[in-house]
């Protein structure tokens, strides 16, 4: 009887551990280090005291194209970085898969799309994508100045690749950044992200 209870407790504990692997809203965001196209290492810890946005990026994904093709993603990046927010775009596609960027290709893609993110980081083995349980592109995370995850999920409330859906869409990241700027708690802290699967 006691042994049964013990096994159950252990099982429950492992289940809890498995659950805790992904980042939870309200918990500290796990630290990571990745290289950009120029080979420069960037760590989340470098930006303590600043608001950080993580954006999972795959230039070939129609959902990502919706936001870049219309210029709305670049505009939001420009606005955010102008306000002192750090915006990290992360490409977790594996070599040979859609959205993969070799180190030499990153800078060209940035200028081609007119990206305004602070850095485009390369995660070809998908380690950071898996650490954050990023499943779609675009999958968005917002981390506050204390390093706590305050938003994770979709970029907006229109889960479609149709650019026409941008008009009138509610952009959750813009809203979360506005909440943080005003010193308020983030109103919508978690949504279900949409898009293509991350091409690990």
């Amino acid at each position, binding site marked *: 009887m006691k042994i049964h209870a013990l096994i159950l407790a252990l099982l*429950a504990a492992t*289940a*809890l551990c498995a*659950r805790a692997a992904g980042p939870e809203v309200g918990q500290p965001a796990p630290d990571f280090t990745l290289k950009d196209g120029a080979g420069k290492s960037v760590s989340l810890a470098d930006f303590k005291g600043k608001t950080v946005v993580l954006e999972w990026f795959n230039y*070939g*994904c*129609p*959902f990502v194209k919706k936001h870049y093709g219309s210029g709305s993603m670049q505009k939001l990046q420009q606005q955010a970085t102008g306000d002192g927010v750090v915006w990290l775009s992360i490409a*977790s596609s*594996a070599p040979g*898969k*859609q959205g993969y960027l070799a180190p030499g290709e990153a800078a060209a893609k940035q200028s081609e799309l007119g990206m305004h993110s602070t850095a485009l980081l390369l995660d070809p083995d*998908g380690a950071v*994508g*898996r650490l954050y*349980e*990023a*499943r*779609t592109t675009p999958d968005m995370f917002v981390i506050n100045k204390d390093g706590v995850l305050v938003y994770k999920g979709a970029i907006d409330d229109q*889960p*479609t*690749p*149709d650019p026409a859906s941008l008009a009138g869409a509610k952009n959750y990241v813009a809203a979360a950044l506005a909440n943080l700027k005003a010193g308020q708690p983030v109103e919508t802290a*978690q949504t*279900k992200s*949409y*898009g*293509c*699967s*991350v*091409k*690990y």
Partner: protein
Amino acid sequence: MKFRAALLALAFPLLASAQVFQGVTLVQPTLVADTTAIVPGQPFRVGLRLKMAPTWHTYWQYAGDAGIPTRIDWKLPTGFGIGPIEWPLPEAILEPGDIEVYAYGDEVTLLQTIRPPANLSSAAVELKAQAAWLVCAEICIPGKADLSLTLPVAKSAQPANAEIFSRAARRLPSPDAPPFAVSWTRSGDTLTASFPVPAGTTGVDFFPLPTKEQEVGHPKIEKANGGYMVSIEAKGDLRGVLAIKDADGQHGWSLVAAPTATQSKIQNPKSKIETPTVSLWSALLAGLLGGLILNLMPCVLPVISLKIFGFVRQAGQSRRSIALHGLAFAAGIFAWFLALGLVIVGIKAAGGQATWAFQFQNPWFVVGTATLVFVFALNLFGVFELTLPGRATNALSEAGAADGYGGSFFQGVFATLLATPCTGPFLGGALGFAFLQSAPITLLMFASVALGMALPYLALSLQPGWVRFLPRPGAWMERLKQFMGFPLLATLLWLLFIVGGQRGPHAIIWLGAFLLALGLALWIYGLVAAPHVRPRPRVLGLLAALAIAGGAGWLFLGELFAQEKAPTSAGVTESGGIAWQPFSQAALDKLLAAGRPVFVDFTADWCLSCKVNERTAIDTPAVREKFAQLGIVPMKADWTNANPEITAALQRFGRVGVPFYVLYPAGHPDAPITLPELLTPSLVLKALSKAR
């Protein structure tokens, strides 16, 4: 010309809408219909058929971690309605990075039901739809197509594309509970169910259908204890589809994963209408109340006045005598109900279907009742007097007690006989409960109904103080007695109406002819039965009366009435301006599957309450307009003659009698709304407004 246009329209989508990427056709969309033509007012199914290139897939209604469900936006001509998409079972695809999606490879047909209006003037109709999907393999590409399908309008149609539709329909999850018991338990955020599976099962799947706000994990499927175990992380109850694979393919059942014994109840209309969980005491109380209210039902009112007249007559007698009359009357009520209860217990034991008021479905029973009512009326009119030959003096010497109490007893029987078809509010549910119970509880239930009905008479007879308020006997009593004959004749009209519904208008005439002859015979009997008539003419008169009654019975009932058959489509579409559809479970299931709101009127010609409701509350301009406005399908379950399908439908709601009304709101066949047994127009309108 029309034919060529139709041909062109059929061929056109094949040419224009394919999604081509780098020379490969990724998705080939087409619209298909399961009919060769549109029959006005008759729903049919259409399908968006997507053929995917190898390794590419489009998504299910819940796409999983990535992807988006296929969308179909219809542009239909005015008057056309469209049901929700019915999604065949998907497959679960696990991609690198623990990304699980629910999708279709190869080919899928997404089904929808179109409801054309009842009137169509054009010779052909073009059905247009814009389909939008995401197709993914290693990469994802959105696709979109404007599709159209032109169908001719005709009076009748043949099935079409049967193979495509039956293949898709086989893969639709069933709304029924799985054929094996699945019960869920919750531990923290994890829902788990272990269940046995049928022999030959080669695999199990669970496809979650979370709400927009609900986060779910990936279902884990394991073999356990000779069956399977499914577990999934989710906060709150989770809708989903459980599927098993065997040699025939895949079979699925929609259910709700909820940690209770009744988990599949929300999704499953059949198990939702399970045995009513009324406690014995509240059922007995409801029976009592129902019995009490029976006294106010239209079919009993004439008997009440009759009985009150009886009390007036008795008011001159002793207290004890009045009390005994009341008890005798109550005993008559009890005797009837208990006899009925015993019959039902007997029939149930014999395996037959016994339902409330079922006796009125037998025309010979109605003929018997009509005869009794008519004879009673003639008696009240004074055409003849009932005397007890030979023992008449004896009876008189006992102050009329013996035959008086006997009379009260049979009046009690008679009153109840007339009351049974009109089950009052509460009574339906309470008797539904009784019918599903063991024999002793059934009898107890009937006894409580009997007590309820007898209560006012018992009170009146045991409380002589109340009798004192009744008027003094006098000459007016004779006139009142005669007057009471008229309500009885009105009751007779109602019985004739029932006979007409069962056997057609000729049957009414034959029964009327028999009653006329019977009236003549009773008049002769009345002439010769008087005490002063000498024996010889009396015997002759009695023989003549007997010959007339017997001859008329043989000719009009035995020969002519017996040959009349039930009229075809009796009483289905006759009432007023509502285009009632005859009830059948298959038609109802089809309409509900198509997402249509349906109002079912369970009725019978012999149920006066039903008729009153229909005339005053249902068949009104406002209700007709509401039906049309909300596209509610009116369905009439006519129970005038025995109909096992309707009996079964009533029993699913725990009912055994009519009237009964139920509204299935659009898209919620699992949440039917039942209406009370006494309707008002505003009550009906209020209920109907919940149809959408």
